[in-house]
């Protein structure tokens, strides 16, 4: 099987890789590029642990082929903090104890960031529906929702 050459941008960095035609973007990120922040919880697009953005759109990277990343801009959890400065969502997740085991956290943060980019002032219900594709088994979502709403309020105040 011949490999496909892909040129893309990940978290602002130019990246090139060779991938198999059937290899997912998630596998490329994790196994080829060493970016293991995106997690595989199901491989079928049901859990959201592998959430990334492709050209600003929130997707499950397990449902995107590595080859499809050609010419796009990918955003992952590794690009969320600016140097040492955490994104407000990241900070609020720690402050609100919005993670227990932390396996779903990268996907939820990427999804929540996408929510706030689309809707800076979401209601609790809008937040719950936006994040309905991200499974968390530890928290019951209570502290996650509070952290997102609190981060949204802070970000609105700062802007």
């Amino acid at each position: 099987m011949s490999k496909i050459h892909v040129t893309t941008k990940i978290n602002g960095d130019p990246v090139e890789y060779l991938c198999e035609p059937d290899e997912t973007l998630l596998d490329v990120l994790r196994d080829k590029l060493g970016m293991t922040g995106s997690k595989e919880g199901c491989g079928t697009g049901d859990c959201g642990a592998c959430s990334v953005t492709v050209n600003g759109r929130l997707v499950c990277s397990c449902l995107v082929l590595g080859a499809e990343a050609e010419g796009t801009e990918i955003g992952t959890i590794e690009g969320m903090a600016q140097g040492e400065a955490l994104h407000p969502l990241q900070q609020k997740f720690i402050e609100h104890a919005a993670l227990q085991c932390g396996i779903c956290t990268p996907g939820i943060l990427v999804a929540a960031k996408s929510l706030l980019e689309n809707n800076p002032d979401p209601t609790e219900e809008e937040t719950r529906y936006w994040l309905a594709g991200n499974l968390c088994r530890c928290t019951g979502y209570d502290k996650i929702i509070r952290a997102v709403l609190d981060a949204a309020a802070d970000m609105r105040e700062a802007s």
Partner: protein
Amino acid sequence: MALDSKTSNEAIQFKVVGTRPLRPDGIDKVTGRARFGADISAPGMLTGLVLRSPHAHAKIKSIDVSAAEAMEGVHAVVTRRDFPSLEPGSGTGDVLDNCMAGEKVLYDGHAVAAVAASSTHIARKALRAIKVEYERLDHVTDVDEAIKPGAPVLHPGRANESVPEGSSPNIMARYEFGHGDIEAGLAQADRVLERSYKTEATHQGYIEPHACLAQMGPDGQADLWCCTQGHYMVRNTCAEILGLAQGQLRVTASEIGGGFGGKTTVFLEPVALMLAKKSARPVKMVMSRSEVLRATGPTASSSVDVRIGMTKEGIITGAFAELRYQGGAYPGSPVDMGSMSAFAPYDLEHVKTVGWDIVTNRPKQAAYRAPGAPMAAFAVESAIDELAKGFGLDPLEVRLKNAAREGTRASYGPTYPAIGLEATLRKAKDHPHWSAPLGPNQGRGVACGFWFNFGGDTCVSLNVTPDGTVTVSEGNPDIGGSRASMSMMAAEELGIPYEKVRTIVADTGSLGQNEVTDGSRVTFAVGLATIKAARAAKAEMCKRAAMVWGIDAEAVEWKDGAAHPAGPNAGTHPPMTLAEIAAIASNTGGPIAGHCEANPEGAGVSFATHMVDTEVDPETGAVKILRYTVFQDAGKAVHPAYVEGQFQGGATQGIGWALNEEYIYGEDGILQNAGFLDYRIPVASDLPMIDTVILEIPNPGHPYGVRGVGETSIVPPLAAIANAVSEAAGVRMTDLPMSPPKVLKSIQNS
């Protein structure tokens, strides 16, 4: 030296314990840096994959691996033949048989062979090249069907001596608990309710699939990295299965992406080690979600009959339950703990439970958060609710009238010390939730729950660094913030800021034996060992200060993070802080440390009361959770945010169990919903906020009064929700899950 030996936390003025500091692994986990089971690799690493049975029950007539072995890029193929033989029927023998089938496959998804290859692509091709010849056998996946005459038999002759002669050969054990004369008790009742209840198997549903990386040299030294609730258990089990010396196998626990009991055993680890041995290369194995659901432990499904007698004043005069749990393909369902916990919340003169451990052609069950208790509580708490409402009595008041308290002889034997059940019930009665109005098609339910909590083997090593900071090494994977709690207890005891302590989870080469992270034991037992290790370090630091001051060590006391002279002959030396003592440790006898190795008793049982409002759509049968409040005794909440998190998480798993989640088997014995689309766990839009009320009735068995909190929270929800749905729908729900078709059918039939 003088130490605070008080055992009641009312007397302790906590400075760190009870606050909400940031967890030490927080930044790693919000930035994607934390390394979970599948997040590590090694040079020259191979990919390991498992071939699994497509049949529910079959004899393995032959396995031909020659074509797979001959493939380019394939470095090892293993089957059961590669493993040393263990005594069949022994605990570890069953674990091995579950990791790699021997003569028979016992369930859909049972492992039969594994390969290690240079790429995933080649490994998949190699699996397809393995030829297994099966002779299919009849199968049974239902607990009640499994004990009918003529049912397919999984393990002829495996029943233990507790099972009466003539019983079904699929019954592996019988348990009985209780006291008094049950028939005499029931005779005193104004009404005796007889009811049967069923629950379906549910999976722990951790988002991280099982994963490991194994290496083994020809000298028998091996290293294993894996996501587990107990790497010491992994070490001991793998060493026994592979015939290795325990000391030669070093296991490092990765960050763990959820466990809930499901990661208290091994699945991939012995296979990965065997593949690594045969290939002489590092081997990484990661399960798919479908493999997790088909082949790792769900909890037992249950079928429970209850007989409870009650007077019209609400006094329970006698209580009996017969519990049948199927634990999948091997003995060991948690029916013993279900039978012990069923009536544990009540003070009963006449009580009896009988439990039957039954095998079926399903995956071997694994512990799931308070294993065995939620199903028993579902039956008992539903029956009590029905009786109370039948007499027009307040269900909280009825529970208060019968509640176990200090001095009550528990239905499973022991006499309780101070416990918190009454406190949770009173708090629930006084809470605004209890008196809030309900709308049409809405109902409110309450239920109580109990869990034992455990202690177990525990080692902690606390080291004081030369600059006066402190490291704590413990041996239990941190599943929900326990490193923060350990750092807090060490800081509290030493009198230094939380930020001066860093806790790590050490590998199996660094500490003695540690029991698995289970039984809600870590904050209790590891916390206790951390406090004792800190006390040992304080005693040593007092000795060093005494040496500097030229006085007796007994004339030195530790307070506020420093050694102080105390007593009439101690003199007037200025206090020496921990940092000052640490800085000169090299000149006063060498490095300073404290450690504790213990198997602490006194874990302290835990009780909760849950209250829930539901709305039932009479046209579809769909149930919406409107409001939920958890009242639970934590003994002492070390980090209240993570205690709340345990309450909320347990309640939510209970909501899934009550409303959506179930293992669905076809007539062919094949699991039909092995994915998160069809095995649907609660999502954010299904739920309201989960309110929590933490009660603190100190556990006399812990220096700070701590009780385990992790498991009790999943015990009451099944019944609390069933009671609420029954009220909302106007019909008693006795089968879980209360999925829309089932609720609709019940409404239509009523």
